[in-house]
């Protein structure tokens, strides 16, 4: 029991908070002696919280099995900043599209994820540059180089969604259309490795990325890629750290970065992560998988703690959410099935309609990113992605489950309630001893269906940084490029979980022999 729950991020976060509480006493002395620098306001309680999408090596990515501990140039720079400010570093990982909303919702002090400095982003956030970079257009080996961006006219180009490349390519397209040429066809993918994969499998002509990431990919993929053009775009020359708008914080951050640059710390880290190394030698430890199915990669994924951890999160989120959903939905279904009209009934009808209508993904994003803007309590440490997902999915699922329960309760003959009350049974006994056992039989198959659906829907929670099975798979794929093997391993996990519950359903249904005359007779014989 303990070991199972200690794997959950909620528990881990609690431990982290506990550790923090122990540490809180300590820094007071240190504070007094050093007190070299003023500390920016986004450092809270001695913790610098950073939001990152760990799928952009070598800036931010997961090297090992533990997906909640990304590494890379960005993470090391963040660590150096935290050290300067005598703070602990806490890293929150999530999809790229979730980074800026999380910054707004004050879930993190700053965002570092190999993000380009653009004027558009600076309208909403303050930015401090920390690394030079250039935009590159990359194709497969053997594709002839381009002399201008116009030559991409009419071609398929892949980019990571939520990045500034999308807007930038839009500008190129506007120019192409104005010149009477067909625009590029832009395909957006949620992660960097998927963007690269589109080029490798030949679905698109080229992808757009940054030189730094490209150098890493080229070392990883040996010589399968080739830079087609490095256009000179003035706005796209720097990676920046983003913070919420605050002139004072910006100055403090700028000073800290300048100091790290001056004392050679940044240069040391650049060398460590080969940020500017264009050679295709010194590749990452793990070379990308070759064309054939790599059984050892598959089995190592299958038996890795990362996948097991992801699967446990998927399973526990689905189970806990569904149990809460069923608990909420039964009383709601009883009220909705009653013939009397009441304010409560109208309110509950509204609840059910609203949460059946709203997309699950939207509900997740709403609870994680929008609600904390109104209720600060929801951006505190205890409100983990794990809890947020359970909250969103329980509410969402309860709305569907109400309909199943309503149907099941209506299917029980009203004479049952009449017969039971004529015997003097209490309301409680009428429901628990007479109506629920019969309704349960009817509700079971659709409920198991809902559960299986829920098990798969948990993968949506990767947008709010829950490290469930599919998020783990994507992060691991970003590191190794072993798409087929890792997807297959994830599939096995899903199948095992679903088949277990289907088996359970069959076992339980066997106990309903009372409902089937033939079965009862054959059992008796």
């Amino acid at each position, binding site marked *: 029991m303990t070991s199972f729950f200690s794997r959950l991020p909620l528990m881990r976060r609690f431990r982290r908070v506990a550790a923090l509480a122990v540490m809180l006493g300590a820094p007071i002395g240190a504070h007094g002696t050093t007190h070299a620098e003023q500390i920016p306001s986004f450092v809270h309680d001695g913790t610098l919280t950073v939001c990152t999408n760990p799928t952009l090596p070598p800036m931010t990515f997961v090297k090992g099995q533990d997906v909640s501990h990304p590494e890379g140039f960005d993470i090391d720079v963040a660590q150096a900043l935290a050290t300067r400010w005598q703070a602990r570093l806490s890293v929150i990982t999530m999809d790229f599209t979730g980074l800026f909303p999380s910054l707004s919702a004050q879930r993190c002090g700053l965002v570092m994820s190999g993000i380009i400095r653009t004027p558009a982003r600076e309208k909403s956030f303050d930015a401090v540059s920390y690394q030079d970079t250039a935009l590159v257009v990359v194709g497969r080996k053997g594709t002839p180089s381009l002399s201008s961006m116009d030559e991409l006219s009419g071609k398929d180009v892949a980019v990571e969604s939520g990045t500034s490349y999308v807007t930038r390519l839009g500008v190129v397209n506007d120019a192409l259309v104005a010149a009477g040429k067909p625009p590029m066809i832009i395909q957006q993918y949620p992660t960097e490795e998927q963007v690269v994969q589109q080029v490798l499998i030949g679905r698109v002509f080229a992808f757009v990325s940054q030189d730094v990431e490209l150098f890493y990919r080229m070392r990883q993929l040996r010589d399968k890629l080739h830079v087609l053009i490095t256009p000179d775009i003035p706005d796209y020359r720097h990676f920046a750290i983003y913070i919420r708008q605050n002139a004072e914080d910006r100055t403090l951050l700028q000073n800290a970065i300048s100091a790290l640059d001056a004392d050679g710390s940044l240069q040391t880290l650049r060398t460590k992560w080969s940020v500017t190394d264009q050679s295709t030698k010194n590749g990452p430890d793990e070379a990308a998988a070759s064309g054939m199915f790599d059984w050892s990669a598959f089995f190592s994924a299958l038996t890795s703690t990362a996948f097991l951890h992801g699967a446990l999160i998927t399973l526990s989120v689905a189970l806990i959410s569904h149990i809460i959903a069923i608990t909420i939905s039964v009383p709601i279904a009883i009220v909705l099935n009653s013939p009397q009209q009441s304010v409560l009934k109208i309110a509950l009808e509204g609840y059910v309609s609203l949460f059946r209508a709203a997309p699950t993904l939207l509900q997740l994003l709403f609870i994680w990113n929008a609600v904390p803007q109104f209720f600060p309590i929801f951006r505190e440490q205890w409100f983990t992605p794990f809890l947020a997902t359970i909250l969103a999915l329980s509410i969402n699922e309860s709305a569907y489950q109400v309909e199943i329960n309503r149907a099941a309760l209506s299917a029980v*003959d009203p*004479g*049952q309630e*009449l*017969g*039971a*009350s*004529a*015997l*003097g*049974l*209490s309301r409680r*006994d009428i429901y628990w*001893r*007479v109506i629920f*056992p*019969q309704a349960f*039989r009817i509700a079971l198959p659709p409920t198991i269906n809902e559960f299986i659906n829920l098990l798969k829907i948990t993968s949506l929670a990767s947008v709010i940084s829950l490290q469930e099975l599919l998020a783990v798979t994507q992060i691991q794929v970003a590191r190794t490029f072993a798409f087929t093997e890792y997807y297959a391993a994830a599939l096995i996990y899903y199948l095992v979980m679903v088949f277990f519950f289907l088996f359970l359903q069959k076992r339980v249904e066997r106990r*309903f*022999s*009372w*409902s*089937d*005359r033939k079965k*009862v*007779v054959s059992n*008796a014989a």
Partner: protein
Amino acid sequence: MQHETTNPPMISVRGMSKLFGKFVALDRVDFDVSRGEKIVVLGPSGSGKSTLIRTLNQIEPHDSGMLTIDGKLINDKTDPIQLRCMVGMVFQNYNLFPHLSALENCILAPMRVKRMTRLEATTLARRYLDLVGIPDQADKYPIQLSGGQQQRVAIARALCMQPEVMLFDEPTAALDPEAIVGVVGIMDELSEQGITTVCVTHEMAFSRRIADRIIFMDQGKIVEITPPETFFTSPKTDRAQNFLNQMLRY
């Protein structure tokens, strides 16, 4: 039967009415039932017979008028559970619990309501299953039993609460002729045990045999209350005469 004034009636109904929306199901009904008396309620369909006996155990609470059972005034403040321990009921469609065996159907209420132990309840249930003639069907589920057998279980289930009054709501209406004979036989037997009975039925011969008095209803009103020999040979009202003519024709 004796109608001793010293002995208060088991059931007393005064000016009782029941409405379903604007439809008057019971219209200011008055009658008494003495302890141990057997009443059969007759009348065309829709005349309020079922509604009448359902108000007696309050599974349909009445809207106005006065109801006393065993001297106790029954209204919306009465604990319905106490009332139903005293007044048992058998339905046209048996209303057995399909997920429970015949025996489990019988012991549920004694255990949950009267807090009997499983052993006490089982001993009692076996006795009544024996009384209704199906001791060997105790472990079968309702779906495995014939209609007649199911209705016997339903009667045993009601008797397990050891009520002082039994209400029967057309207990043979859903049965085939052969099963009717069996169930009527059991009711004959029960009538000899001196339990106060109110029965809605269309079984004329049965009514005539066991009833102390017949209540004849039409359009929510009690038209006449007479002993069976009078009712079947020379009813006081034309409506009763018409009803009898129709019943005898078929």
